[in-house]
């Protein structure tokens, strides 16, 4: 090891300057990301406070926050929040697992792909909301139909991502596995799975995004709890501040859950030789 290697190694171990720089760049990134929403809110608040706009249909931030605060005080907010999160979580888990399994099977076995893929692609072409009436007939109006709808929404991007990326794994590294005489299972575990991980993460993120989308649709079709219920309730009772408050919570939840997914999977894809990473 050369002296340069050693000193860079030392710096990496101690966290040193580069660790500090990393934390600062994450922090400044957050600040930059907040510029647009915060200034937007500030301008709107000013317009309403100074009487240039009525704020009746688009409530100013102060009213949204107070609506949120009231919902929180009565315990309603956390109640609805938990209900919605549970639905998304269970729907996402079911859809993702099914997508990974079916995508894996069709990506790995050619006969299975020829048998299953055309049908699945045809099903994918159906707008998922179109299933709603059928799901209600099948599973009733309660949780099962809602979670199923979310799972369907999550399933397709995950299925497609896994299946397509498996098919396109570079023949060259598969040959490395063959030269070292990996069994079929080892080939999957040691070569194919790590190779598709980055694509899998992307498809999970897409799936999660759709999960948040479909939970609203599911809660529109009749729910007594959940953030979607707050939206419907706000519309029926003419409370725009409650609607915008719920929308705001959706935005925060969606962003947080996506960030969490990225954070959790980042170590798994750190090996990628990305040009964006180099630029930092």
């Amino acid at each position: 090891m050369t002296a340069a290697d050693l000193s860079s190694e030392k710096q990496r171990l101690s966290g040193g300057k580069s660790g500090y720089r990393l934390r600062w760049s994450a922090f400044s990134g957050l600040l930059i990301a907040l510029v647009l929403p915060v200034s937007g809110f500030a301008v709107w608040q000013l317009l309403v406070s100074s009487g240039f706009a009525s704020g009746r249909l688009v409530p100013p931030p102060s009213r949204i926050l107070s609506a949120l605060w009231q919902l929180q005080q009565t315990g309603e907010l956390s109640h609805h929040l938990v209900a919605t999160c549970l639905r998304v979580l269970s729907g996402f888990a079911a859809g993702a697992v099914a997508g990974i399994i079916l995508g894996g099977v069709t990506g790995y076995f050619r006969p299975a792909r020829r048998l299953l893929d055309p049908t699945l692609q045809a099903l994918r072409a159906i707008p998922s909301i179109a299933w709603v009436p059928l799901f209600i007939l099948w599973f009733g109006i309660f949780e099962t139909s809602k979670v199923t709808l979310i799972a369907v929404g999550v399933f397709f991007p995950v299925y497609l991502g896994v299946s397509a990326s498996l098919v396109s794994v570079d023949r060259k590294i598969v040959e490395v596995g063959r030269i070292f005489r990996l069994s079929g299972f080892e080939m999957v575990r040691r070569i194919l799975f790590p190779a598709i991980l980055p694509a899998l993460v992307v498809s999970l993120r897409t799936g999660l995004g759709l999960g948040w989308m479909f939970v609203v649709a599911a809660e529109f079709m009749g729910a007594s709890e959940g953030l979607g219920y707050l939206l419907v309730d706000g519309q029926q009772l003419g409370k725009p501040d409650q609607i915008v408050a719920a929308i705001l919570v959706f935005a925060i939840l969606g962003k947080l859950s996506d960030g969490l997914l990225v954070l959790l999977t980042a170590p798994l894809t750190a090996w990628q030789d990305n040009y964006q990473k180099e630029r930092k």
Partner: protein
Amino acid sequence: MLSLLSLSKTYPSGVEALSNFDLEIRPGEIVAVIGGSGCGKSTLLRVISGLEPATLGQVRIHGEEVTAPHPLINLIFQEPRLLPWLTVEQNISFGIRHLDAREQGRRVRGVLQQVQLQGYETRLPKELSGGQAQRVAIARALVTQPEVLLLDEPFSALDAMTRGSLQRHLLHIWRETAATIVIVTHDIEEAAALAHRVVVMRPSPGTMLEEITIDLPLPRNELEADLDPFKKRIRTALHRSLAYADGTDLMLV
């Protein structure tokens, strides 16, 4: 003993990449295969390694027919083909995961020293230079202690200095392991510097045109003058092989 018995390979597309190729290779021998682009050199190695089934003929190692990748035969590709998600150390131990951890560690340290990459254990492939990556690929093959090492233009993407140093590495490894080596190249200098025997191939269909034995001791750094007549013979044979090219797709590089 590695025997190639009238090997033929016709790709599904109809290209006759290899036809009636016969060669007996003694244990510990270094054979260089040289020829223009497209004359079937890579195909030859892929068939010997068991990656590609022969259409006709057989590959035998110690009398046993090779029909699939074989534990005693390892192939090093033109590109390093390291697994980008594994560190240098993990890449090298890729083929010996069935051994216990101590033996793995011992062997990895051994080959790291052979290719002189101690201290690079925890690097990722993206943090290596081209020559370092190719050395890791060589180490990954060596660590399984193969009897036969097949190399497909392993140094062609590297600059002259790195290439020379890796050629010396290869000879060093050959002396330590007594492996049988088949190296594909289109560099006359490389063939003359490394091989006991040089096989010149011709295209369409790919087969052997001439065999040139170089009975000079290895390494040959000091033997430049003695090598000249051999290089001349290789060059002449290569020019003859050009005549077989059907069109412009064959070039001497």
